[in-house]
Structures are given as C-alpha cells and as structure tokens.
C-alpha cells in the first residue's frame, strides 16, 4: 500500500460545480495545515501521519469506509477530541499559521472560529431563537437586543430556514422536523460567524429532500466559509465538494480535485473504493 508521507497539496484543476462562479485556485493560502498528525484512543492508533492542507473558502469532502479515521481527523481540527478521555494527539495542526495544539492555546476561542455540525442534529432543549442565539450570547458578540435578533435572523436565512420558522421563533426547537433541526444546528454554528465549518456527516440521518436542501446550502456557504465535510455518500461528495480526501485505515490515501478523484484518481486504492470494489 503506498502511503503519501509528504504533504499533499490540494490540487484543483477543474472548475468547481454548482452555481458559484469563481473556481478555487491552487494558489489560495491554506486555511488549515496539518502535518504528521497521529491520533490515539488509548493504545489504538486511529490516525497515521496525516498531512493535509485545506485552502480557504472551498468545500473539502472526506470520504472513506467506516472507522477509517475521517471523523476523528475532522474532530482534531477544532480539538473536539479533547473531551474524550484517554486520547492523545501528536503532530501539528495549524490554522492561519498558528499551531492549535500549542500549549496556551485558547480552545474556546478556537472553537468559536471553527464551527461544527454533527451527524445527529443536537438542538438544545430551548426555543428556536434561543438555540441560534446561544453562541452569540455566551461569546457576548452582540451589544443590543435588536442586534441579537438581527444576527439570529441572518443566520436562519443563511441556513435557508427563516421562511419556515419566522412565525414560531419562540416555540421549541425539538418540535422541528429532522431536516429542519439539522439546518437549525447549521444556523446555530453560522450565527457566531466562524471561519471554518466542520460537518460530520450532516445529512446521513435525513431523507433525500432534506439532504438536497443541506447540499444546496453547503454550496451556497462556501462563498463565505471554508467547509470540511465528512460523508459516507460518494455522490454527495461529488455533488458538493471542490476537493476530496480519501482516508483508509487511519491513513490519508489521496487528496485531489473532486472531478479528478471521481474520474481518474491517482491511487489505485481510491479507484477501488470509488468503484465499489471494497468498503
């Protein structure tokens, strides 16, 4: 098995799909740079020397079979693995040139800049409004009630949920449908205006209609945000992403422009996976 040990720079050779006009170019500065990342759950090594650069304002998809480490890798980018006892990380993850695992790093500040949407939608047992306002309130990002209301509305519009909930902002978020709850979680993440949005299989529990809405949303969002999405669904990766990274057994096998990845990948392992020969 050939494992790329050197940093794989995302190569974007073909124009991106979707409505967005300007295709991302290879000379974009890396928003996140990962070097020789190893990750352990106790004694089990989940990630082996992963090196990867994620350019600004693109959608990068992580694909690979279950247990290949793609979610673990995603969660190292906002240090969400810190909350799991017995885990250990080595290597370097830097965002805008700052090592986020350096001692003294403000994790709270990091997570404010790197938003996250989870596989299972997890709205708080609060009203729709309070859910979106939560991040704004705890980070004291607004100075007045009207500003807060504006930011909440903006976030709900960005996540294409406003029209459906504008008349019932005070009712419980748990009364929304699954797809709406997931878009609410996206709105909640967007409300604090992060720079990067991590999505861990955001549509895996949704029906095709809700999935389609989320995918449209992702394509729309990359104008403003850098988006990293983990997905089991290869069609989804092909539809929404500019760049795709393929993980297998905790190793990063290949990173390439999505078009190329799905038509003519460099690695045979990638081709085998994509054509369904395993996984």
């Amino acid at each position, binding site marked *: 098995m050939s494992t790329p040990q050197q940093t794989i720079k995302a190569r974007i050779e073909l124009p991106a799909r979707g409505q967005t006009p300007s295709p991302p170019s290879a000379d974009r500065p890396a928003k996140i740079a990962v070097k020789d990342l190893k990750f352990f759950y106790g004694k089990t090594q989940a990630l082996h020397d992963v090196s990867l650069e994620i350019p600004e304002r693109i959608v990068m998809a992580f694909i690979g079979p279950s247990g290949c480490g793609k979610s673990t890798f995603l969660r190292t980018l906002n240090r*969400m693995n810190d909350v799991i006892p017995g885990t250990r990380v080595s290597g370097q993850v830097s965002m805008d040139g700052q090592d986020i695992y350096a001692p003294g790093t403000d994790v709270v*500040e990091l997570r404010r800049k790197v938003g*996250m949407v989870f596989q299972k939608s*997890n709205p708080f047992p609060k009203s729709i409004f309070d859910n979106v306002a939560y*991040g704004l309130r*705890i980070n004291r990002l607004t100075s007045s009630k009207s500003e807060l209301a504006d930011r909440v509305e903006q976030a709900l519009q960005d996540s294409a949920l406003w029209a459906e909930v504008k008349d019932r902002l005070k009712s*419980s978020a748990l009364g929304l449908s699954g797809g709406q709850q997931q878009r609410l979680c996206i709105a909640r*993440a967007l409300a*604090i205006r992060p720079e990067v949005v991590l999505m861990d299989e955001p549509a895996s529990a949704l029906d095709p209609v809700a999935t389609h809405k989320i995918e449209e949303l992702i394509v729309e969002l990359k104008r403003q945000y850098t988006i990293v999405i983990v997905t089991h669904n290869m069609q989804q990766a092909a539809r929404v992403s500019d760049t795709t990274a393929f993980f297998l057994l905790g190793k990063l096998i290949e990173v390439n422009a999505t078009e190329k990845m799905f038509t003519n990948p460099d690695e045979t392992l990638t081709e085998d996976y994509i054509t369904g020969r395993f996984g």
Partner: protein
Amino acid sequence: MTTLTALCTVVAVGILLIILVYIAKQGISSLSIRFLVDSPRPVGEGGGIGNAIVGSVMLLLLSSAIGLPLGIAVGIYLSEFGAGRFGGLVRFLVDTLTGIPSIVTGVFVYTIVVVPLKHFSALAGGVALALIMIPIVARTTEEIIRLVPQNLREGALALGAPQWRVTMGVVLPAAASGIATGAMLAIARVSGETAPLLFTAFGSRFFSYYLDQPIASLTVQIYNYAISPYDDWHAQAWAATLVLMTLILAINIIVRFLTRKRF
C-alpha cells in the same frame, strides 16, 4: 409472562390502594378545620395538629435549603468531573451514606448540634433531615445528568462555550425535570422520617417559629399519639397520618407542575 407481571403489578398497586383507603377511612372522621389549625389539647378536649403542620413545613424547608443545593452540587460534580479515583471514592461514600439508618443520623446530629447548643431545636432537626437528603439527591442528580446526551454537550462546546457554561446553561436545564423529581423523592422520603427527629427537633405541643427551639412535626406527633393509651388520640393520629399523606401528595403535584416539560 404477561399474566405473571400483571398479577404482580396488581398486588403491588393493590396494597398501596388498601393502605390509602384504610388511612382515609380511619382518619377522615376526626378531620376538621379546627383539627388542622389548633394546637394539641389534653385528652378528650379535642385540639389539633396545626403546630405540627407548621413544624413539618418548617423542617422540610430548612432541610431542603441545606440538603438540596449540597446534594445537587455533589451530583453535578460526580457526573461531570467524577471520572477519576477521587470521584469513585466520593461515589462510594455517598452510597454508604444512603445506607446509614436514619436513627443513627439522629444520634449523630444530637451529639454535634443538640449537645453543644444545649437543647433540642428545629435547626438540629433540619440538619438531620438534610443529611438524609444529600446522598439521595446527589445520586439521582448524577444519574439524571448522565442521561443528558453527550452530543448536546459537544454542540455547546463547539460554539465556544466554556465547560462551566455548558453545565449550567445546557446540561442542567436539560436535566432539570429529572433533578427536580430526585429532589421531590428526597423531600417525600424525609417528610416521613420520625426517628432522627426524636433526637433533634424533639417535638412540641405549642406553635413555634424559632430555629433554636424544639419544634413539632407530623411524624413525631403521630408517633406520640399512636403509642398513647387513649382512643381519642389514636383517632387523631390517623387523621394526622391522612394529612401527612396529603402533604406529600401535594409536594409531588406541585413539583411536577413546576418542572413540566416546556421544550
């Protein structure tokens, strides 16, 4: 299988119903407004349990004020930060505390509160009941908080919330109704305690509103009347029992109403 479990359920619920109906039947004849507001009188002259109702309510308020915050805080600690060896030790001690017979708690409080202050007091009674509440509340709080899904915590952490804000702003509200249920169970449990009060609050035949004086309570009143040789007082003991059961039921209903699911 269904028949067997249904049968067991019928037996369990049936016994409860029989107890309730029996108490109501025995107690209702002596029940009157005067009985609820008067203080006790000598045998045959009527009198009531007004002072005991006031005393019981005061003791419950006092023990809740001491025991609930402490117990809930211990529960939060155990569930959110108690993964290590120290947490395990605390959990073991709390479990041991739950198993201590209430009369032992009474004697203990007698030596540390009653003896130094030189007389029985409502305060000592409140402390004794609080000591019984703490482990119950701590363990139920811990179990309930554990049930709050991890992804709710992660959702809040991912928005840049520090740990304490996640606990206070997301985890506790999500667990609130369960914690309240635990608190209610603890209150209901201690409101039926008699033994620890004999050594601490002692009982009184008068209305008292002072923390440093002995105070009456329904349970001790029931005990005193029940062991007396007078039929009149026996009847009053039944009526007082009915009042006590109603009080516990009322606490149940009020807490359930206050903590009903809003979201």
